[in-house]
C-alpha cells in the first residue's frame, strides 16, 4: 500500500465529503464513482513537489487546504455575479453562467437555442440518470488527485451537445464566477460533445465578484470532438489575485478533427491548468497556445499532455510567459508519439520573459517519441527585455514602462494572434492591455 503522510486538511476534507455526499447530484452508479474518486484523492492527498508532475506546483505548500464547499448562491450573490459578468461581457456570445459552482439559469442565455444545440446543467443530467452521459462525465483519469477530487465533489456544470452536421456561429461562453467574501471552494465539471462535421467556439472565463478573494475554483472540462469537427477554445483566467484555480481539460479528437485552444492567465494567486489532449483519429490537428501575464506573488502553471495515438496528426504549441515581481510561471509540455503514430508533426515553442530579478519561469518540454517517421521539435527560451531595444524606444520619447509595454505586447502577440476569431483576439488583447496598464 502506498503510504503518504496525510495533512490535517486531508482528514478534514474526508469528513467534509461524508457530510456533503448526499447533497451531490447523481445516485447509484454515479455515487459509487464519486466514492471511488474520493478514495483515489484520499490516497495521495494534495499533490506535492515530490510527485514529478507537481514538482513546480506544490499544492501542499501553496494551497495547504481544500476549503469547505460553497453554499448555493442567494439573490445577493447572484447580483454580485451579474455585476462582475457585466464588466467582462463579450458581445455576440451565448453566455452560460456558473455562480459558486451552481448553474445560474437566470443569468444564462438559454433562449432560442440553435437547431442541433443542447445545453443542460450537469446537476439536472445527473439527477435524471442518463447513464451513458454520466459515465462519460466521470470517465476521466483519477490518477491525478485533483481531477479525482473534482469528480468526487462536482456540484454542477454545463453539458453541451452539438448534433452531427451542426456548425454554430454564435460562440458559447461558460462564465465561472465566485460571488462573495466567504473563503469557499467550488467544484464544477462540464462536458462538451461535438458530433461529426460540427463546428463551435467555446470561451471559458473565470471571474471574481466584488469582495471575492481567497476562494478556490476546481473545474474540469471534458471534450469529445467528433470526426471532421472543429473546436475553437479560448480560456481566460481572471480570478482574484488571492484565489486558487485548479482546473483540467481532457480533450479527445476524432479523425480529421481540429482543436485550436488559447489560454490567458492573468488572475489567480495559484493556478494550475492541466490540459490533456489525445489525437485518437487520423489526420487531426491540435493547436494549443497560451500566455501567462503574472506579477506580485502569483503562481501560474500550465501543464500540457499531448498524446499522439494515431498516425498523420499535427500539433503546435506556442506558449509565452511574462513574469514580474516575485511571480512564478510554469509550463510543462509533454508530447507522446505512440509507436503507431507515424507521420506525426509536432512542434512546441515556449518563451518566458522575466521582468524582475525575483521572477521565475520554469519550462519543461518533454518529447517521448516511439515512432520513427515523425517531425518533432521543441524549443524554450527565458530572458529579460532587450536593453538596446528599450533604449532605442526611450530615445524616441517613450517612457520606460510604455516602451516595455510595447515589447511585451509584441512578445505575447505571437501567441495571441493564433486566436482565429477577430472578436476574441481583441478580447485577449484587451485583457493583456489591462494588465500592462495596471503595471504602468
Amino acid at each position, binding site marked *: 500500500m502506498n503510504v503518504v503522510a496525510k495533512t490535517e486538511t486531508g482528514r478534514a476534507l474526508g469528513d467534509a465529503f461524508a457530510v456533503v455526499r448526499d447533497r451531490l447530484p447523481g445516485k447509484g452508479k454515479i455515487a459509487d464513482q464519486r466514492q471511488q474518486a474520493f478514495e483515489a484523492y484520499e490516497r495521495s492527498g494534495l499533490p506535492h513537489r515530490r510527485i514529478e508532475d507537481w514538482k513546480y506546483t506544490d499544492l501542499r505548500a501553496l494551497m495547504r487546504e481544500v476549503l469547505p464547499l460553497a453554499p448555493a448562491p442567494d439573490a445577493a450573490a447572484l447580483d454580485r455575479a451579474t455585476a462582475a459578468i457585466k464588466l467582462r461581457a463579450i458581445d455576440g456570445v451565448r453566455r452560460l453562467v456558473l455562480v459558486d459552482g451552481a448553474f445560474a439559469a437566470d443569468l444564462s442565455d438559454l433562449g432560442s437555442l440553435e437547431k442541433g444545440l443542447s445545453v443542460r446543467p450537469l446537476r439536472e443530467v445527473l439527477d435524471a440518470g442518463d447513464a451513458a452521459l454520466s459515465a462519460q462525465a466521470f470517465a476521466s483519469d483519477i490518477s491525478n488527485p485533483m481531477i479525482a477530487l473534482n469528480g468526487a465533489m462536482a456540484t454542477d456544470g454545463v453539458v453541451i451537445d452539438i448534433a452531427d452536421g451542426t456548425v454554430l456561429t454564435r460562440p458559447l461562453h461558460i462564465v465561472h464566477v465566485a460571488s462573495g467574501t466567504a473563503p469557499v471552494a467550488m467544484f464544477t465539471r462540464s462536458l462538451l460533445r461535438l458530433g461529426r462535421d460540427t463546428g463551435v467556439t467555446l470561451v471559458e472565463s473565470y471571474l471574481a465578484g466584488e469582495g471575492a478573494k481567497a476562494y478556490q475554483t476546481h473545474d474540469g472540462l471534458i471534450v469529445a470532438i467528433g470526426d471532421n469537427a472543429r473546436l475553437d477554445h479560448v480560456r481566460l483566467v481572471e480570478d482574484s489575485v488571492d484565489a486558487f484555480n485548479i482546473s483540467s481539460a481532457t480533450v479527445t479528437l476524432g479523425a480529421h478533427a481540429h482543436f485550436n485552444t488559447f489560454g490567458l492567465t492573468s488572475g489567480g494567486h495559484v493556478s494550475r491548468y492541466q490540459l490533456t489532449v489525445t489525437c485518437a483519429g487520423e489526420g487531426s490537428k491540435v493547436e494549443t497556445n497560451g500566455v501567462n501575464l503574472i506579477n506580485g506573488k502569483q503562481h501560474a502553471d500550465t501543464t500540457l499532455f499531448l498524446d499522439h495515438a494515431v498516425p498523420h496528426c499535427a500539433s503546435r504549441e506556442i506558449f509565452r510567459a511574462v513574469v514580474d515581481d516575485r511571480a512564478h510561471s510554469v509550463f510543462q509540455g509533454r508530447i507522446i508519439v505512440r509507436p503507431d503514430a507515424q507521420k506525426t508533426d509536432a512542434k512546441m515553442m515556449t518563451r518566458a520573459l522575466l521582468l524582475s530579478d525575483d521572477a521565475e519561469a520554469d519550462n519543461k518540454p518533454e518529447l517521448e517519441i516511439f515512432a520513427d517517421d515523425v517531425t518533432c521539435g521543441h524549443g524554450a527560451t527565458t530572458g529579460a527585455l*532587450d*536593453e*538596446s*531595444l528599450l*533604449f*532605442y*524606444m*526611450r*530615445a*524616441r*520619447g*517613450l*517612457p*520606460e514602462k*510604455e*516602451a516595455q509595454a*510595447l*515589447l511585451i*505586447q*509584441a*512578445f505575447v*502577440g*505571437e501567441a495571441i494572434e493564433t486566436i482565429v476569431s477577430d472578436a476574441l483576439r481583441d478580447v485577449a488583447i484587451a485583457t493583456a492591455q489591462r494588465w500592462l496598464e495596471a503595471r504602468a
Partner: protein
Amino acid sequence: MSLLEVKDLQVRVEEREILHGLSLTVNPGQVHAIMGPNGSGKSTLSHVIAGKPGYEVTGGQILFKGEDLLEMAPNERAAKGVFLAFQYPVEIPGVTTWNFLHAALNAQRKARGEDEISSPAFLKKVREVAKSLNIPQDMLKRGVNVGFSGGEKKRNEILQMALFEPAVCILDEMDSGLDIDALRIAADGVNALRSPERAMVVITHYQRLLNYIVPDVVHVMSKGRVVKSGGKELALELEESGYAQFEDAA
C-alpha cells in the same frame, strides 16, 4: 544662448575612460561635423547626449538650452528636442513602425503638455514625410526596421527626425552602408530640416557626406578629445592628409 553645450565631458565605460574632457558648443541654425577615426569616441559622445545607460559621467556637463541634460531620462531628452539618429538602428519585431512612431510622438507631445495627435492626422503626416524620403508605405506596417536594408534603416531614422521635429539632431554615421543614391536622398532629407532654430551634429568617418550636408563647423576628434576645430575646409584637409597627424597630437 547656445542650444547644446558640452563642457569638459569625461566619460567612463566599464572602468575605462573613453572621453577625456570633451567640449563642444552648438548654436541654433548651425551644422557641426564631428570627424574622427574609428574608436575615437564619437558614438560614445552621441550615446551620452541621448542618455544611454551604461556610461559613467565622471566629470563635466551637458547643457541643452541651459538645462542639465544629464539629469534627464532619455525620453525626457527626446521630448525636449534632442534626437539621435543611430549608427546601428535596432530591429523591433512585433512592433509596427506605424504604431511605434505614433506612440512615441504622442508620448513626446504628452510630456510637453500638448494634445495627442489623432490617427488620421498622424497618418497624413507620416505619409508626407515617407513620400519625401522615398519610403514605401508598406514599410510602415512592418516591425520597426525588421527586414529593412541598411539604407532603409537609415532612411527610417531620417523619417523619425522629420516627424519629431527636434531642436538638436545628432546623426551618427548616417552615411555608413549607404550607396550614393541612398546617401543623396538621406542628405536631402536632412537638408530639408535645416532651419535657423535647429542645429545638427553630423558624425562621420568620411568627408564624402559633407559634400551633401555642408557644415558650418568641423571638429576633429581623436582618442576621446576634440583636437582641432575649423571651417568646412578642415574636412577637405583631412581627406587629403588623413587622421594620422591628429592621432599623434592627441
